[in-house]
């Protein structure tokens, strides 16, 4: 996979150069030149904030088409935990799964089941592991990438357990290979994704060499198809569904409740996550055991590829009827065995991107920094965006790096 694959891309034709996305990007990865937005691939963490804020729908997501698994013998759809909140109040979730199956799948699995399993694993791991300072959840791929770029000293605080989606992929493969005596090449698994960062984590994963999933389809793109299938038939099978605690991973705070931990911080919204991570670095959260961090406000229900307003979706989860979640009894011993076998761990180091570093040589970096401070003193400090950079400071950095000219500032 391309070293710079990103699931967030710009449709130049629709872009009006309005600077909304540029101001909203938490990594200051966007510049506007010649009335077009440009995303710096080295800085972008695929959080999708730009997609959410673009009034012209020019910021888009790159996702797979469903037919990427048409050649596989066993076609699997992994439904996101967020899906229940996307449909009218108390639509029977089995019907949603059935409607999705009709799009060409042999099997439909519920991510919430694997959230139940992850909850048990995390709870066990936290009891055993002694990490200094808070453990940071590794569920949100945008947060992991944010840490990799802006908070490299916190990489060691990340929980070393794969996300629910990868756990699902690995366990589904194990189950199908046993049941049908087939190989990995026979199995095609697609995640129906509410999230751009998740698409990236499948196509260009961190911490592992390759994903257990074959691809990700945007939930938004197939929503219409699911709705039409829901209306066209009333028949549905009974699917294995996650328990109530697993389903609540869909919104912020749900994960922390499910792992039953005291002393946690649950933070949503990428800028709020930045604030909390800054506080961790300062040692302000040393008494906190776990940080649940979600780049999207509301948690995963706030992902850019969802249909529904996150707060409406959350209220649906909170009023979920019994038949829409499972009541599965999990084998704690087996799950603990799985945990201890390393089946769910990362096997590749997460290396900092060093995107903030001005130069690998400290003396050169100091010279650049002084240059930036000198330039900054000449600038008006309006952060207006007219130069095509999100702030005067980032503009000064661009000039120091030779990527912009001071004449681009309209106010000098």
């Amino acid at each position, binding site marked *: 996979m391309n070293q710079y694959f990103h699931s967030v891309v710009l449709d130049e034709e629709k872009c009006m150069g309005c600077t909304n996305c540029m101001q909203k990007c938490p990594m200051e990865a966007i510049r506007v030149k010649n009335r077009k937005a440009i995303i710096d691939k080295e800085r972008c963490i695929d959080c999708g904030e730009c997609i959410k804020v673009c009034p012209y729908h020019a910021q888009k997501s790159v996702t797979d088409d469903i037919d990427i698994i048409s050649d596989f013998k066993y076609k699997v759809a992994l439904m996101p935990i967020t899906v229940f909140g996307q449909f009218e109040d108390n639509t029977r979730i089995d019907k949603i799964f059935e409607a999705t199956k009709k799009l060409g799948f042999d099997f439909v699995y519920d991510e919430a089941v694997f959230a139940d399993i992850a909850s048990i694993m995390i709870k066990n791991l936290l009891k055993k592991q002694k990490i200094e300072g808070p453990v940071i959840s590794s569920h949100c791929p945008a947060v992991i990438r944010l840490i990799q770029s*802006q908070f*490299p*000293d916190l990489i060691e605080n990340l929980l070393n357990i794969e996300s629910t989606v990868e756990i699902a992929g690995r366990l589904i493969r194990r189950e199908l290979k046993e049941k049908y005596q087939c190989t990995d090449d026979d199995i095609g698994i697609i995640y129906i994704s509410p999230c751009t960062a998740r698409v990236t984590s499948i196509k260009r994963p961190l911490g592992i060499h390759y994903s257990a999933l074959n691809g990700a389809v945007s939930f938004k793109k197939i929503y219409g198809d699911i709705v039409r299938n829901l209306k066209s038939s009333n028949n549905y099978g009974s699917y294995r569904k996650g328990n109530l605690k697993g389903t609540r991973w869909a919104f912020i705070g749900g994960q922390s409740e499910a792992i039953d931990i005291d002393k946690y911080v649950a933070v949503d919204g990428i800028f709020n996550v930045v604030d909390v991570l*800054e506080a961790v*670095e*300062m*040692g*302000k959260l040393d008494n906190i055991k776990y940080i649940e961090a979600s780049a999207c406000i509301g948690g995963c229900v706030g992902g850019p590829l969802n249909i529904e307003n996150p707060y409406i979706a959350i209220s649906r989860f909170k009023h979920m009827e019994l038949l829409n979640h499972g009541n599965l009894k999990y084998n704690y011993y087996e799950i603990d065995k799985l945990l201890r076998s390393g089946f769910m761990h990362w096997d590749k180091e997460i290396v*900092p991107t*060093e995107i*903030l*570093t*001005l*130069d*690998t040589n*400290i*003396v050169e*970096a*100091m*010279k650049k*920094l*002084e240059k930036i401070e000198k330039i900054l003193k000449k600038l008006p400090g309006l952060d207006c965006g007219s130069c095509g950079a999100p702030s005067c400071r980032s503009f000064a950095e661009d000039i120091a790096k030779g990527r912009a000219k001071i004449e681009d500032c309209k106010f000098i």
Partner: protein
Amino acid sequence: MGEIKEAMELEYEIVPNDFDSAGEASSNLKRILKQLGINSKIVRKIAVASYEAEINVIIHSLGGNMNVIISAEKIEVKFKDNGPGIDDIDLAMTEGFSTATDDVREMGFGAGMGLPNIKRCTDDLKIFSSKEGTILEMIFNM
């Protein structure tokens, strides 16, 4: 041919009892250290120590400043304030001992871990204090 010693100096003013800007000096320092590519473990230690010291100046003193000298060999962070001074430095270094007022404690500060935390993070720590003011000199080796 002698070695060219390049060093960078930074200075930030710290206003007493100003909780709007509390932590800004140490945050700015942290950002600069990251831009200079300083080892992330060292950045973390400096972040913790400078934050604690900055809060001490805000809570306990009549105001002061943070002065930083960065070179390729080490980083020196010096906090200087205008009083009223630490009566008993050894006592102040004891974990849990605090002279913070109730107002300050209600804000969540004043747990009495500041100076011990700072000592834990630094490679060398010197404290000088009199009624005229206190100086904290921290050295972090690269």
